[in-house]
């Protein structure tokens, strides 16, 4: 069984369902719109901010503020790509056609990841430029130190969020269960754990907390995070790999 055949098949699958279009569109629109809104608001409030806040002001990171909501749509995309197979019963037809489960799973993940990467990068660049336009005189330039890395990183972040969700959905199979765990986790729990001082030391190793470091250009004052932008991204990548490995092992041994 040639992997190229299966990849072509998975591309047909992903482009022929409506959920792909609406989840990705939502991720793009929400990330950009919210990013612009918060950039515009922050730009206006700049003069009222404290001295410390002004010193550590990170116009690049501010323009990505919409990602906190936009990533939820990416999660839905990642979950549905995988769990659609289970909720519809298609999985049995799919595995009868491609009994090599590793080939099946990783072709599916590869196609969805590629699509998420293209959409993520495009979103990240558009978000950056529109966000900076809203910030007016406080804006950053794409040529500034670390900015290009942060913008590309924004696209990679969105991609990995989707990949992590695919792994979790492969393990859990049910779309409702997967979303019921991932959405509150990334929207609430992770933020709480990462910002409350008691849990901060653990919370910052969670996938989104570590991964979002790559979108930072200016390090906040008193920041004692033990990893840099790529270190944080690496931690997030490890989470994604672990979720995929778990999904693969379960798929391999489970009855379809």
């Amino acid at each position: 069984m040639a992997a190229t055949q299966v990849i072509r098949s998975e591309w047909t699958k992903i482009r022929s369902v409506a959920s792909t279009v609406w989840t990705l569109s939502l991720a793009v629109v929400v990330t950009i719109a919210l990013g612009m809104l918060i950039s515009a608001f922050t730009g206006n409030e700049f003069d009222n901010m404290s001295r410390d806040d002004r010193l550590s002001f990170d116009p690049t990171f501010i323009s990505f503020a919409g990602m906190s909501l936009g990533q939820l749509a990416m999660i839905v995309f990642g979950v549905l790509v995988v769990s659609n197979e289970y909720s519809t019963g298609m999985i049995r037809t799919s595995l009868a056609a491609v009994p090599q489960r590793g080939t099946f799973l990783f072709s599916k993940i590869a196609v969805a990841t590629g699509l998420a990467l293209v959409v993520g990068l495009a979103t990240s660049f558009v978000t950056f430029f529109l966000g900076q336009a809203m910030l007016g005189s406080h804006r950053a330039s794409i040529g500034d130190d670390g900015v290009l890395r942060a913008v590309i990183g924004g696209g990679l972040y969105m991609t990995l969020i989707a990949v992590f969700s695919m792994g979790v959905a492969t393990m859990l199979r049910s779309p409702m269960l997967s979303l019921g765990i991932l959405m509150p986790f990334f929207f609430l729990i992770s933020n709480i754990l990462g910002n409350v001082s008691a849990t901060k030391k653990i919370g910052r190793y969670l996938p989104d907390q570590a991964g979002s470091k790559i979108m930072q250009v200016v390090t906040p004052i008193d920041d004692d995070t033990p990893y840099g932008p790529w270190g944080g991204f690496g931690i997030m990548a490890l989470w994604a790999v672990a979720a995929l490995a778990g999904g693969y092992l379960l798929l391999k041994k489970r009855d379809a």
Partner: protein
Amino acid sequence: MIELSGLTKRYGEKVAVNNLTFTVRPGIVTGFLGPNGAGKSTTMRMMLGLDRPTAGDVRIDGQHYDRLKDPLKYIGALLDAKAMHGGRSAFNHLLCLAQSNGIPRSRVHEVLDTVGLTSVARKKAKGFSLGMGQRLGIAGALLGDPRILMFDEPVNGLDPEGIHWIRNLMKSLAAQGRTVFVSSHLMSEMALTADHLVVIGQGRLLADTSMADFIAQNSRSHVRIRTPQRERLLDVLHGAGILVVETGGGVLEVDGGKSEHIGELAAQHQIVLHELSPQRASLEEAFMQLTAESVEYHAHADTPAPAPAGELGRFEQPAPQWGDDWTRS
């Protein structure tokens, strides 16, 4: 050719499939018969490598399923007509299956035409009726032009025209020399389509026989006679060496006897007959008796019980459709 050897599937304590060994041969339709819950679908899923056997082995043309290169070209299966994404069009559903096995796009159009879905090819599958869904599933099975075809309860829920179509399709596929394996819980359905019969109950193999043999062995035929001159007839038949059983109500039964012969004897001796009728036990009854002990979900007492074994072959009343008298409890 599909070969099962010692195939077993256990879910915890419960044995769903118990040491099944049989071979499905090419060129004929093999019926896979058993009551609901007998393990038919589990067996078929194991044949396709979807479920892992606890013990034993299935080989498709001598190979394990997951060793087949482009398996849709070896074996096409319809397990569940609803095993597809409802939001995808019929064409795209078949296209993604075709692509995964290196089957050309033109073949998708061909099979859509074969099953008569060309006009709705671009419509989403969730809008399809049960019959259309079944046809789409069959199109998927035919996609790779496989030598082996497998259908799990293909006529379930279909209208008479759809049932007729599927029967003819299966027969023509077998006539082309293909291996056709079809499951059902209705003996009457199998009697019309299958050449060979594999019967299971509670996961165990109960019969593996040709349909002709099954009919010959299991449908005991006898002649039913009523006469006002009972004693004379008994003497005459006895004199001719014919064994007669009295079954009460003035009815006599001759096992395996020829009604012509008995009629001629009666005429010779001028005995009046009120009834002389050849009887055949239905296959449905034979199947019911075969699986009686293995039916998992028995009916409750408010429905008439199936005829006890000893009365098989007598039918004053028409036999109920198998399965009418019990429900999943």
